[in-house]
């Protein structure tokens, strides 16, 4: 005797939610909730909207992702704890999200060129519980913004900063982090122009650091005591020349700068160079 499976609409509600949740914001709002009244009820539950992840690349032809995002946040009714916005959000949308999400623990922004550093600092002030902040390929984030963010989010434990085309202002960002984020446990500072003084300040200013990823930070010199200190203090360390194969974002300029070029020229005979 085979058991007959119950109709879709009679699956346990949690199970239906478990499946529909994985569809993502756009598919839920556009399709799933319109299928039947049972699914609509499931999709209206704020618990469905605790995690929001919207990426422009998944919907390259849609121009209304910012509005979708706002509707998803409305539905969460303040229960949102984790949001990733990629390639669509502007300052207004970010502020809209943050004003309505006091419980947010994790904010991740990637390739949002229209979010200003000023709006970002204003937005995170609304997030007293924020523990994780990831800023990836954001054009307008300055060192002083980083410092203000650190001061506004005392619970911050995990921070990622990968800025494109950053000007060589050396260790400013690292110093801002060291001064304002004393409780960090995890830090990724990708392809940053910091020098040894910046790294030194990070080790001093963030004593709880367990993991540190400074891949592509080619201006730090880890051959001396600083390198030793890093490997002693940090449990999980990723070094400037470590593989970036598992890194999905732009990996920055090639691993040399003017100094290593000069070393290269000075140490090579002309024969070596041209043969």
């Amino acid at each position, binding site marked *: *005797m*085979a*058991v007959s*499976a*119950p*109709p*879709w*609409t009679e*699956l*346990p509600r*949690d*199970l239906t939610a*478990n*499946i*529909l*949740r*994985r*569809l*993502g914001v756009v*598919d839920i*709002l556009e*399709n*799933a*909730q*319109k*299928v*039947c*009244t*049972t*699914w*609509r009820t499931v999709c209206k539950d704020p618990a469905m909207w605790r995690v929001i992840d919207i990426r422009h690349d998944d919907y390259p032809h849609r*121009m*209304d992702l910012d*509005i*979708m995002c706002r*509707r998803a946040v409305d539905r969460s009714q303040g229960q949102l704890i984790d949001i990733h916005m990629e390639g669509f959000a502007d300052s207004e949308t970010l502020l809209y999200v943050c004003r309505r999400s006091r419980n947010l623990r994790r904010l991740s922004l990637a390739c949002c060129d229209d979010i200003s550093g000023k709006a970002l600092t204003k937005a995170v002030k609304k997030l007293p519980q924020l523990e994780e902040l990831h800023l990836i390929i954001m054009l307008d984030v300055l060192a002083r913004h980083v410092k203000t963010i650190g001061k506004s989010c005392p619970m911050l434990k995990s921070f990622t900063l990968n800025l494109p085309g950053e000007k060589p202002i050396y260790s400013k960002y690292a110093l801002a982090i060291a001064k304002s984020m004393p409780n960090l446990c995890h830090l990724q500072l990708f392809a940053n122009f910091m020098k040894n003084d910046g790294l030194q300040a990070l080790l001093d200013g963030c004593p709880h650091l367990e993991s540190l990823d400074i891949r592509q930070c080619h201006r730090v010199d880890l051959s001396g005591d600083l390198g030793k200190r890093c490997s002693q203090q940090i449990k999980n360390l990723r070094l400037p020349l470590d593989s970036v194969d598992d890194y999905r974002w732009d990996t920055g300029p090639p691993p040399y700068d003017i100094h290593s070029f000069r070393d290269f020229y000075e140490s090579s005979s002309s024969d070596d160079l041209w043969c």
Partner: protein
Amino acid sequence: MVTTDEKGPLTAKKKSVIIRSCDGDEFLVSESAAVLSTSLKKILEEKEDRLIHLSDIDNKTLAMVIAYLSTHADDGLSDDLKRSFDQEFVSGKEFDVLKYLVLATDTLQVTCLCYTVAKKMADIMKNKLVEWVRREFDIQNDYTPEAEAEIRRLDAWAWDDRQLEDD
């Protein structure tokens, strides 16, 4: 009928359990595999009996779940191999089979498999129109025409906002 799991007859040293499906088929499963299911683990902790009867899981579905549990309990397999087994496991299965599976994993509390199957089901539904989902999942449209019109009105926001901006 007693069917052993994929690894063949169990050695005397290893503890094993017999699990019976609702249609009476019995499966011999190593205890290390069975306890990957939170529900089975609880049952085994509470009673001495090595025979567990599952009144709402049929033999085909149970065989699949047990194959999954046995693979994941095998210490000799690398995590990569287990991951590719998971991918294989859900690929090409029909909706109804997935539905039985997701229900069974929910009952047995096999969180990882429940996640994998739910993800597969969502992937199938992704980017499909409402009508397609209704047809393929055999779901009746129980909206009244008024309710449907109301939803259309409420969901017109995206379009309206765009128009305002264009103006």
